[in-house]
């Protein structure tokens, strides 16, 4: 007698259907979590249109993927990952990140950019704004020393590019990190890099594909 009831209950639990504010039902939430693993339509569209590709990886976990250029506005490049994360670069330097759990909202990089692309050693300041766990934007200042190092050839799929390795060592009162940029001195672009996101995620590496 009770059997049909349990069956119906299980069905309701599993199916949970309706139009009523789907996203706010338990089922809707489960669905959204599950579907987060699927490639996003925006990414698929970019893939089909042959958008430029950047290889990225998280240094701490050694996990990597390819991300696609979705939009460029002035110096700013918006790169999209298959599951919907976003990496914002300013001429190849890390500016902000979305959807990866880390709160790096935006950065002010004019001083380090002048050193890196001018291939000039010296001191500079950079500012990072993080979203903290209470949804407040908190800006941190770092004092950095930039060193332009020796020639360091990088081999891409088709060719070898001669680059200079630029090291940017930064510290604040309680944090320190070292960013590395392999800069093509002719085109003044970053071919490969290792850049610090924040204390939670550590470093991201980037590498152009051509």
């Amino acid at each position, binding site marked *: 007698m009770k059997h049909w009831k349990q069956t119906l*209950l299980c069905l309701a639990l599993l199916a949970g259907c*309706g139009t009523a504010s789907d996203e706010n039902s*338990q089922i809707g939430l489960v669905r959204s979590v599950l579907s987060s693993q699927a490639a996003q339509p925006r990414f698929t569209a970019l893939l089909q249109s042959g958008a430029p590709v950047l290889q990225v990886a998280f240094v701490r976990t050694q996990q990597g993927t390819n991300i696609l250029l979705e*939009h460029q506005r002035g110096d700013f490049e918006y790169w999209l990952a298959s599951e919907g994360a976003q990496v914002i670069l*300013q001429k190849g330097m890390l500016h902000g990140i979305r959807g990866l759990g*880390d*709160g790096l*909202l935006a950065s*002010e990089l004019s001083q380090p950019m002048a050193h890196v692309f001018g291939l000039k050693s010296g001191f500079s300041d950079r500012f990072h704004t993080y979203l903290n766990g209470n949804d407040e934007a908190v800006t941190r200042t770092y004092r950095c020393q930039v060193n332009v190092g020796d020639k360091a050839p990088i081999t891409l799929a088709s060719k070898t590019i001669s680059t200079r390795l630029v090291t940017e060592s930064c510290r604040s009162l309680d944090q320190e990190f070292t960013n590395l940029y392999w800069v093509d001195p002719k085109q003044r672009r970053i071919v490969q890099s290792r850049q610090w996101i924040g204390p*939670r995620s550590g470093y991201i590496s980037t590498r152009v594909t051509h």
Partner: protein
Amino acid sequence: MALRNSILLGVICAFANASMAYSQTLSTYGTPGLVDIPTAEALPDGHLAITTNRFAKISRNTLTFQVLPRLSGTFRYSILRDFSLPSGNLYDRSFDLQYQLLHETDRRPGVAIGLRDFGGTGIAASEYVVATKSIGGRFKVTGGIGWGRLAQTGSFSNPLSTLDDSFDVRPSDSLGGQAFAGRPDFGAWFRGRAAFFGGVEYQATKRLSFQLEYSSDAYDFQVQRGVIDIASPINVGLNYSYPSGSNLRAFITGGREVGLQYTLNLNPKSRRVPGGFDKAPLPMRASGQALLSTRDLTSPDVHTQAESALKRLLASEGMELQGFSHSGAQASVRIHNNRWDIEAQAAGRAARAMAAVLPAHITRFAITFQTKGVPITTVKLNRNDLETLAEDYDGSWKTLTRARFEDPHAMGRDGELAETFPKFSFGLGPYTAFSFFDPDNPVRYDLGVELSASYRPLPGLTFSGIARYPFVGNIADATRTSNSVIQRVRSDAVRYAQESDLEIQELTAEYMFRPGENLFGRATVGYLEAMYAGVSGELLWFPNDSRLALGVELNYVKQRDFDMLFGLQNYEVLTGHASAYYDFGNGFTTQLDVGRYLAGDLGATLSVDREFKNGFKVGAYATLTDVPFSDFGEGSFDKGIRVSVPFSWLSGQPSRKKATQVIQPVLRDGGARLNVSNRLYGEVRDYRSNKLSDGWGRFYR
């Protein structure tokens, strides 16, 4: 795909690392302490600690909240097994407060004063003043003086009696005991004999610490009843802190009883994933790069194109476009937000969708948030500001200073999309219901299916119903019937569960409207809630950027039949309140309701909540009415605490869903309020400018 998983892993590791330095030992009473005795330490501001333990025939379950940097509040539910014959357990609810008089410095100890079990049955009633000092990096020494239960061993005459002889005598338990339980026992505090207690904690490693204490709490009452065996005033404990910040502890009380305790520490101020796993927002496009950048919106074709593109982009962002119009250089959208619990983030995403689509001649965006199709607040932004500030390192703040908030009270149905109304929606899914603190079974539950449906033919006008069918559960198995001596307006809850099968929870017609600037109105008629049917009307005055809101509500209701179908009982009542809501602007909000409650009693409810910007909320309320404490019954007056946790706080995924739990130690008939749905303050507040500004850090997320 792997990228996100690895990041998730990294985040979890980082979360663990971030919490590593912190490990606060909590006593068996769930407050900062050694084994049984308190210490003069506070949890970090805003932290929440949940403790459960078991020793002898006692178990204590405690929730402690660091309300302010110096003030903590505690709710405890203790079970003493076989306390009375035959095999009767004692279930005891108690509240504590501790105030940090001095924080510890290099030179002096921290000093705290505390009240343990200051209302309730008083079986743990005690007061204390305690000092704690760290010595070197590894030792913490604590000493204090206690009264009441903390003066059962090694007691001496009260030093306070030098001030006044009345401190010599502590009124006996029969005065402060069960009969009058539930209200503060001012007359007993710091009275009677006093005793010293003390102890030391040794931090052996980062994770492991030892506690050794001399406790003046001898469990006299419990020893008499055979609940615990105490052979010595010395207690010892061994605490292990997990990287996540939670603690597992083994301890020995009174030399005989071995116990185990687990503590979960939560920091509401910090989401588990600060940035969240929200899908990437649309990139901020320059007006020259918009889909229709060179077109003219005054052409009907272009308008239609813009509308359908906006509808699609907003839908992918979890928002419904309900209206679209333009006038001169301004384009306006009306949206309903289904996804973003931080409403500023919805505004930011809607603005970027507009920037991605609209022609370059549109330079101003007006985004109106709607609830049930009724406009609540309009956010106005300059397109140019967004383009300049989207990548600014201080962009969120600068955008906020340039945003304007307006009250769209006279907007009418301008630009409303034809398909917005009528709207039919339904949902079928599981539900759970809980009933706490029944002495026969402290946690009762029901699990079943819930069918909800609504039909909205016009903005603000909603016909809706919710029906439930419980499949499994034991709420209806409760055998305790109401012993209330006043009108049974709530205490018959068990009869409702027992005598119903299919439950009609709500069946109403509701109209929400804007009677004027800064004013909101609601009228509801029908089966308003599980136990009452009737009419309900409400008016709310709530200006944008005002910390104060005022409201009045009037209801005429009849009690529903226990079968929860369509019949009504004879009891009818006119009930209503005048309410004042105040946002202190520092995370604390308060609400005062004065009026007539369901049993016809007159009185007021005061509630205070601490709400973090990420939406995590912890609060407490108390209601005093003209029902005498003795008539009210157990608990003396209605009070409770509530915790609300946004799903996004836990999962990192955006969602407007929250897990909310009210802990009401006893459900009685005095001070009971009608549970009509969609009270205006709750409906409106999220989209008023103060709340929108609170979340503005996420505007560009």
